[in-house]
């Protein structure tokens, strides 16, 4: 495998693994919605995030000639490239909104560096997934703008506690970016960081009483000494066991409740567009 391919795989795993964890956050938080459409929206966002994860996993498995589902079911949590900020559960509604919003912005900005790159299969995927991710950010923005005073205080605390963990995802390790040089990535990570900061400042300054300089101060990109640049996380940092169990259950009762993989992945169940029902759609 070339150095470019190796780095590309690492970058895509950072995005896919983060979306994988975030999707489980949405599922866990689903019943904390404030209304039925809220809960349904979280279900949709969880479904999108897990779908994006599997799409990227499938692309990687094809290219790396790995067995199907190896990346989802064949790894241990130590091997994940997930965003560290998601390793601590949300403490309240404000903390959830802020963390999910920061993560969505970070995932999109890093992913969008491949939008007009030379890898056409990947850039097509970025375009398709990006259309869905836009609505995730918009929904979260709406909830942030509607936050109460207490929730605003929680959001500010959350930004102070988790902002740096998200922003340092874009940290430059000083090495040249082979993906940018090879054209696979058409914009650099530094530009992605600038876009991420713009996105966050734009919404947080409207949703809270923080001004731009205060928001930017809470988003430093300095990394610890034991930083693992390939995984974009602290070396050795691992998902908590409870969260991993939620993602890949081993409890026999939970495993029994899950649909067999052959049904959930291989069967294209279509319960909406069946001909015998379509005449009644929206009639």
């Amino acid at each position, binding site marked *: 495998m070339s150095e470019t391919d190796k780095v590309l795989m690492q970058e895509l795993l950072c995005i896919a693994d983060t979306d994988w964890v975030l999707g489980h956050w949405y599922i866990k938080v689903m019943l904390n919605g404030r209304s039925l459409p809220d809960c349904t929206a979280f279900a949709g966002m969880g479904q999108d995030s897990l779908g994006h994860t599997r799409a990227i996993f499938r692309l990687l498995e094809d290219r790396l000639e790995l067995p199907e589902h190896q990346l989802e079911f064949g790894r241990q949590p130590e091997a994940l490239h997930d965003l560290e900020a998601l390793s601590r559960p949300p403490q309240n509604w404000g903390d959830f909104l802020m963390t999910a919003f920061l993560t969505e912005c970070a995932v999109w900005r890093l992913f969008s560096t491949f939008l007009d790159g030379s890898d056409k299969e990947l850039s097509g995927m970025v375009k398709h997934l990006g259309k869905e991710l836009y609505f995730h950010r918009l929904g979260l*923005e709406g909830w942030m703008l509607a936050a109460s005073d207490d929730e605003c205080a929680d959001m500010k605390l959350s930004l102070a506690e988790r902002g740096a963990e998200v922003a340092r995802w874009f940290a430059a390790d000083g090495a040249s970016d082979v993906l940018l040089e090879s054209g696979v990535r058409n914009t650099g990570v530094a530009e992605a960081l600038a876009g991420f900061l713009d996105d966050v400042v734009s919404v947080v300054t409207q949703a809270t009483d923080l001004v731009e300089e205060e928001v930017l101060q809470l988003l430093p990109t300095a990394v610890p000494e034991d930083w693992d640049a390939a995984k974009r996380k602290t070396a050795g940092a691992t998902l908590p066991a409870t969260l991993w169990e939620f993602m890949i259950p081993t409890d026999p009762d939970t495993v029994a409740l899950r649909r067999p993989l052959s049904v959930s992945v291989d069967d294209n169940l279509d319960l909406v567009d069946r001909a015998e029902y379509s005449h009644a759609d929206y009639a």
Partner: protein
Amino acid sequence: MGLVKQKTARNTMDWEYFEVFAREEPDGPLFHLGSVSAPNKPAAVGQARMVYSEKPWVEMCICPRAEVVPVISVNDMIGIA
């Protein structure tokens, strides 16, 4: 996420309702899909996209219910009173 009593921060009955419309084909009719209630327009757009995602719509739009102009109404005697 804290205690249950901490989860209901506001009265959602105060939220605005938005009607949701979508088109399945570029030259097809605009269907009324349903509605969402949300505290503001960004949240309503996000919710509409997530809630009514059962088909690959080519167009979707929302409209504040308060902006809908009644022509025939079950509530008002339009043209009489």
